């Protein structure tokens, strides 16, 4: 190839690349960008991984957005290159081409370029990995334990937050905003995974091990999550929420959780419900401060009945918005929407209001009490428990009468 031929060839190539860029690449970028970002996505998806609401998730997002962009551009370049080649070199009766076996210099260049891009990405990745693994700046610790199919939260005594005695709750993780919370995760049966996408990536809860996960929320709000390690029959129903409250609201929440038990007034339906609870539910479910008729404390023994050895502690149940592994709402649809859609300034107050009688989701709660395994798949058929030494995985069918259910609901609503 002579010098002039080469120049012409170069000019033609550049011109055609320009045409491709202008005619194909630019609209493609615009169309792809618009369709993915604007049209392609649900608005307000509660578990959106691209909407960080705290510094840990923000760190991940800042790291991944350029990677997505570079990956997208490389993908477009490959697609355009392939399509351009297909058009330019389609069979138009040209002779069989020279049998070129390769150009080592070109190949080495095209190997080194992606290697360099990845080297740059890996430097930033390393930084993020170690930042996300830090534990020495922790301000608050919450122990999180997974079991089929719900999460338990155990707040060890931490005087600086007013937690003078351990708080045990489930379903919803309540935490103060602007505080570096460290979750210490483990499991009582199979592997689960704790994931609140708005606040951080996921971390597996593995039996026999304790794994840590940093959480911090910038603003008060309710952040949705879901167990993400396949954990058996009701994996799909093992949900959770992180509720971030302002520091003042969090103090109120702590105070409420530590408030003593208030027995229902005598001669009420609720008091009859307490009796039903003492006859049935207390075998597995603890309510702190609940006394038996003979004046002894009612201590639950889930380890005798449940394979994982635990059942949700129901003290102050109505301060939560969900039950049964956050599968069902304790709030009716309308009241739930009011809390979830509240602006961050008032979400704390709405949440702390708890579940009032008018807001209680009677339908799902009654269905649950009537026949729990029917509304949530669980291993609770007494005929199939030989392999687990007669212990249930999940809540069994209790054969409660409608009357008992009414009494129980009346009692549960008093657990503010």
């Amino acid at each position, binding site marked *: 190839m002579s010098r002039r031929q080469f120049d012409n060839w170069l000019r033609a190539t550049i011109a055609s690349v320009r045409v491709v860029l202008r005619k194909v690449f630019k609209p493609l970028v615009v169309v792809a960008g618009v369709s993915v970002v604007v049209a392609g996505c649900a*608005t307000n998806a509660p578990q959106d991984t691209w909407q960080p609401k705290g510094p840990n998730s923000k760190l*991940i997002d800042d790291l991944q957005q350029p990677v*997505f962009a570079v*990956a997208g551009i490389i993908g477009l370049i490959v*697609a355009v290159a392939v399509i351009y080649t297909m058009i330019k070199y389609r069979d138009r009766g040209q002779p069989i081409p020279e049998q070129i076996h390769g150009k*080592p210099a070109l190949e080495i260049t*095209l190997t080194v370029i992606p290697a360099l891009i990845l080297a740059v990405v890996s430097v930033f990745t390393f930084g993020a990995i170690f930042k996300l693994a830090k534990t020495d700046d922790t301000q608050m610790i919450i122990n999180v334990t997974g079991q089929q199919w719900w999460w338990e939260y155990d707040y060890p005594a931490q005087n600086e937050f007013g937690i003078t005695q351990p708080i045990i709750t489930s379903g919803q993780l309540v935490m103060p905003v602007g505080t570096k919370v460290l979750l210490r995760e483990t499991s009582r049966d199979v592997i689960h995974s704790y994931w609140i996408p708005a606040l951080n990536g996921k971390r597996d809860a593995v039996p026999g091990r304790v794994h840590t996960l940093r959480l911090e929320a910038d603003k008060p709000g309710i952040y949705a999550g879901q167990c*993400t390690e396949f954990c058996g029959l009701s994996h799909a129903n093992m949900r959770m929420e992180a509720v971030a409250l302002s520091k003042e609201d969090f103090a109120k929440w702590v105070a409420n959780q530590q408030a003593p038990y208030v027995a229902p007034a005598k001669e009420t339906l609720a008091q009859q419900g307490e009796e039903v609870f003492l006859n049935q539910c207390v075998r597995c479910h603890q309510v702190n401060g609940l006394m038996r008729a003979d004046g002894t404390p009612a201590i639950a023994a889930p380890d005798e009945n449940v394979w994982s050895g635990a059942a949700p502690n129901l003290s102050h149940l109505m301060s939560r918005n969900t039950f049964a592994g956050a599968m069902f709402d304790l709030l009716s649809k309308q009241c739930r929407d009011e809390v979830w859609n509240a602006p961050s300034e008032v979400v704390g107050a709405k949440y702390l209001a708890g579940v009032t009688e008018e807001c209680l989701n009677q339908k799902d709660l009654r269905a649950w009490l009537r026949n729990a395994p029917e509304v949530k798949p669980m291993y609770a058929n007494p005929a199939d428990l030989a392999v*687990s030494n007669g212990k249930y995985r999940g809540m069994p069918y209790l054969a409660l009468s409608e009357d008992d259910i009414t009494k129980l609901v009346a009692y549960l609503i008093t657990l503010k």
Partner: protein
Amino acid sequence: MAIIERPAPTLPAIVTPTTTYGVLKRPVSATGWRSWVFTVDHKKLGIMYGATAMFFFIVGGVEALLIRLQLAAPNGKVLNADLYNQMFTMHATTMVFLFVMPMAAGFANYFVPLQIGARDVAFPRLNAFGFWAFLFGGIFLNMAWFLGGAADGGWFMYAPNSGPVFSPTNGVDFWALGLQITGIASLTGAINLIITVLNMRAPGMSLMRMPIFTWMITVVQFLLLFAVPVITVALFLLSFQRNFGAQFFDVAAGADPLLWQHLFWIFGHPEVYILILPSFGIVSEVLPVFSRKPLFGYPFVVFSGAAIGFVGWGVWAHHMFASGLGPVSVAVFSLTTMAIAVPTGVKIINWTLTMWGGKLWFTTAMKFAIGLIVLFTVGGLSGVTHAVAPSDTQQTDTYYIVAHFHYVLFGGAVLGIFSGFYYWWPKVFGKMLNEKLGSWNFWLMVIGLNLTFGPMHILGLQGQPRRMYQWTEARAGEGFFNFAFWNLVASIGSFILAVGILLFLINVVITARNPQKAPLDPWNARSLEWMTTNPPKEHNFDVIPTVHHLDDFFHQKYEEDATTHIMTQVRTAEEIMAEQERNAEKHIHMPSPSYWPIVLAFGLPVITFGLIYSHLISVIGGVIVLFAAYGWALESSTAPDSDFENNSPGSGLDKVTANHD
């Protein structure tokens, strides 16, 4: 040994032993079902592998459609939780172990001996045994559906969820033991093909003149050779835990459940390359043929394939970034995972540059190959986004991962397999698949797969986790493009995909009924498998070719002008064929069929069945295996003369006689 002789035999062949010490003589049928069941012919076994794998592809596909029906709308009611968990477990298990792997084994069986100019594999009976072990293993795995429920722990079968308490049916037992049987099939196949490639290449075929498909298959066989023992160990631990009360993964006894994850993924990640590299090999054959150019940077493609084979062992923990490994391990595996993207990217570049400057012929095979380049790239790039470990902690176990590996495995492995179907169909069956139907087949599959798996990127990034038998509107977001929309699109896409695959099956039927024969060299191909008849003769080549170039067949047909570099055709495929037939070798020794491979393979599921139900049955299975091994070891290498009467094969040229004088 049965010897296929030319009309004028001169020299006697010398074979021992001459009498059988086994119980049965060797089978002699050259036609009918016996000629298939007792065959040791690598081509027949290749077809049998392919047909069986295709059957399991349909089974796995129906499972996939049921999954998509269940997820088409929130709170799906098509399957209950238990059945759904079995469905996704068996969908993955079937597609990985019973479709892609054996389909690749089918291609390898059929074409590796042809591509290296050999007449069969090194151990023909072992080859037959491998097929039967795979078939019986696959049937055994699926028997669980009818015996109390299939495995329900996911194909990754994480401990302790796979333990006897958490998965009380026999499903996991069938799964673990069934995979042991298919593992034996993979191991024997790997050893056989490695030895075949290393020892039985035609004269002149140095390793760097070996067709790229054979190269990739060789890399895969080494991966299998080292990866299958790891899963074998893991499955033994699991079976011992379930069936004999061992405590390898029992936390209460001090075990660490992460042991299983490490074992599984040390197998599982090389397995990914076991699935994809055969298809890389296929498109690396197809692209040069239909570009009329050699593969660009052949040594780069070979060495990048080998590099993937090595580095593939150092990336397993990227499946465990959320498992709590600690930052140092995570950083190391993040780096190695990015490193493996480089040799993979090299292949994309080389394929594109193979087409660059070519004379492109867009046959269906070529379309599938180009489809692979583009769609595999999508999967590769989404893979890079989760090589970034912190980003992976947001993505892992969501539909984003499902999207990623379906672009890799469907957009990569499966499109490569379909490219191979259209390219090699005339070679295997002597007839051309219909190109027009092929085009519909291609476009429906590509549209279907993008509609099915494309939206899963969005679903995953917006927080829909995997392996959930139902998804809830509470997490679905608002607006028109919420989860309901994309899940519905994915479900519709899966049925378009299914119609595309159905068109392939229709194409097969139409082609089979079409009397028109394929030309000898329909694609103007480049490698040795095209230097014989369609379908090939039982002994593959009349003359073992002597190889002088990479793409030797092309260089026999074309010569290059030294100054102008213009390629001129000097000979046609027909002329080369005629010359071979003129110079046909007088004595061609082909291995005799045998009863024992199928009998020995049948003993295996009997043993494993007994491990689940009654050890007495295991003893019976063991006796079958021992008996078959005895027969295998001591059968004579050929049947006596008298057995061969009226048993000549169809080919007019060849006459099968017994010869042990």
